[in-house]
């Protein structure tokens, strides 16, 4: 039931997330795009769980928990960077290189 459209939506969402990560330079925006990709994956899990059993739905909760933890850590890091350099533009944060 509505499997095809659901997967299409999630693919579009995922592509949007990837494109955002690729083109944007603001760390907050990139972070949000990553969340978009995670949720696109969640939608795929849920859609496929209709046919393949409850495992996919359970996995969504794991993804949410990890995303929450990641948000906490990631935002904290960004806050620290901002306090240090008064910017979160990734073009200026490139100290770690060969």
């Amino acid at each position, binding site marked *: 039931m509505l499997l095809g459209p659901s997967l299409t939506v999630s693919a579009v969402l995922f592509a949007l997330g990837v494109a955002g*990560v*690729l083109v944007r330079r603001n760390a907050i925006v990139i972070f949000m795009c990553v969340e978009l990709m995670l949720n696109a994956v969640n939608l795929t899990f849920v859609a496929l769980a209709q046919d393949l059993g409850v495992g996919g739905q359970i996995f969504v909760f794991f993804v949410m928990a990890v995303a929450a933890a990641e948000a906490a850590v990631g935002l904290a890091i960004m806050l620290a960077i901002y306090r240090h350099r008064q910017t979160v533009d*990734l073009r200026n944060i490139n100290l770690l*290189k060969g």
Partner: protein
Amino acid sequence: MPALPLSLLWVVPALPLLGFAVNGTLALTGTRARPVVSVVGVGTLLLAFAAAGLAVVEFAALHSPAPLVFRYWEWLPVGELQVAFALQLDQLSAVMLLVVTGVGALIHVFSIGYMREDPGYARYFAYLNLFVFFMLILVLGASFPVMFVGWEGVGLCSYLLIGFWFNAQINADAGKKAFIVNRIGDFGFLVAMFLIFWRIGSLDFVAVFAKAATAFPPGGALITAITLFLFLGCTGKSAQIPLYTWLPDAMQGPTPVSALIHAATMVTAGVYLVARCGVLFAMSPTGSAVVAGVGALTALFAATIALKQWDIKRVLAYSTVSQLGYMFIGVGTGAYAAGIFHLATHAFFKALLFLGSGSVIHAMHQAYHATHAHDDAQDMRNMGGLARYLPWTAALMWVATLAIAGIPPFAGFFSKDEILGAAFAEATARPIWYAFWGMGITAALLTAFYMTRLMLYTFHGPNRTGDREREHLHEAPWVMTAPLLVLGVLTLLGGGLNIPPLFGGGALLEQWLAPVTAAADQLRPPLEAAAGTEWALVAAAVLVAALGMFAAFRLLKPAALVPARLAPPETGLARLLWKKWYVDELYDAVIVRPVMWVSRDVLWKLVDNRLVDGWLVNGTAAVSRALGWVGSRLQTGEVGTYVVLFVIGVLAVLGAAVR
């Protein structure tokens, strides 16, 4: 007295080893306890001589036809190779045992006087004791490897003692030369050992000689190769052509060392080896002919060089090379008893000559030391008329000179005559021996000449030492003349060891050695000349010796000599002989310089610096650094770049997975 078990034979080599340990410790701790060093150094040798004498007397009473082998411990038990540390007592090693410990003890006594003033007194006696230990291992070893330990050990001690006064570059160089030249010979010894083990599967003398007759086809290529490689070892150790050049340089060591190592004992090890392996040499006519031929050539060649040397020790050194050549004519002809006989008599008269020259040098050195002159104490042009100041030395050295020249009834006459007689008898079957005999008799003529020359220039005519120095010339102390006296008696009577039946003697040494030489004699029956021929040969030998001495008396004018620093340079043939036929220069150009060139310009500068260091070591580093540079360019620090690469990577993996 209850008979001690002969298995206590190990005591004989152990005594000098003990002396080495004690004197070595004293030398290292820097104790200046000369009496202790003398008592230990000489005492152990005298005890060893006594022990050797006891052992030989007891052994003689057994009349054992087979060698007595005492296995003390398993030394190299490796698979099929089973080498025990075993000593062997038979008639041959008994003779060597007595010569080494007897002459060795006398030379130790002489050293007390000769080295008295030397700061390295304890070190000297430590080395000398160590040498005797290794020499005894060499002659007593019951297998090739045990003998090889002694063989290498005496080489080491020879090196240490040649370079004893190592703070002069020339002495250190002489030591190195001896060591390196001997390495070439040792290579031959090792290869021979490998070949023997490969075919026979054992290295014990008894087993090898018992199986040799069946294991090798007589006259075959393998046995010839083995004997030639063994003889290569002998040419190194016993200073024969082409490896003799180290021995004259070895005279840089203290004179008693020249007497002990480079005249009486170590350099005769090659003769001993050929006699020991008589069975092998008897099976290879080619090998035997090479031994006798090289011996004859060396005897003649070294004698010509001795004609024009001015250094008293160098004359004796070339004389030693020449006399060793005689011994090789003997053992190469199959006359093992004659070779060993000449070895023993040569040990007596050559040790006497060297110690006598030591006494002369001692006197000269003291005279020059007293007046702070810097003239050469060993140059005969600075001597002359010394018989007035050193009567004992002069008289005893005349005895030795008559012996080495081959004047009856001195020891050298009998032994040299026997070798030449055997060579002449062999020539009836193999004509090439006529040439060997001819070279031998010519060398005898030259020997008589150059030895008389040495005596005339050193002891007779006017004195050329210098007016102020002359007052300080005097005879050596009794501790130096006493050993000379003993050796003089031995030189006088040594011929009695083996008076041939021709003169109504019993050929004692030949009878005594018969059990050892029997196997070789069976393979290659020795030829006997007719009695008439033998008498003619004896007459020829005596005539030649007398002629040589007479010529020296007539031709040489000691009165016309001038001291070394005023002497004009030699010209013509004399210069060629004085320069030793330019053999050292030839070796330098043909071998030493090319080897140095290859080592420095090819191996060092090209292979090591360019190839190994340049390409391999630095090349590896350069490649790693280039790869690292490429890798580090990828790390831009831009998150965006990473993500792009990451996405490309994921798409590539997915694309591969889908296909």
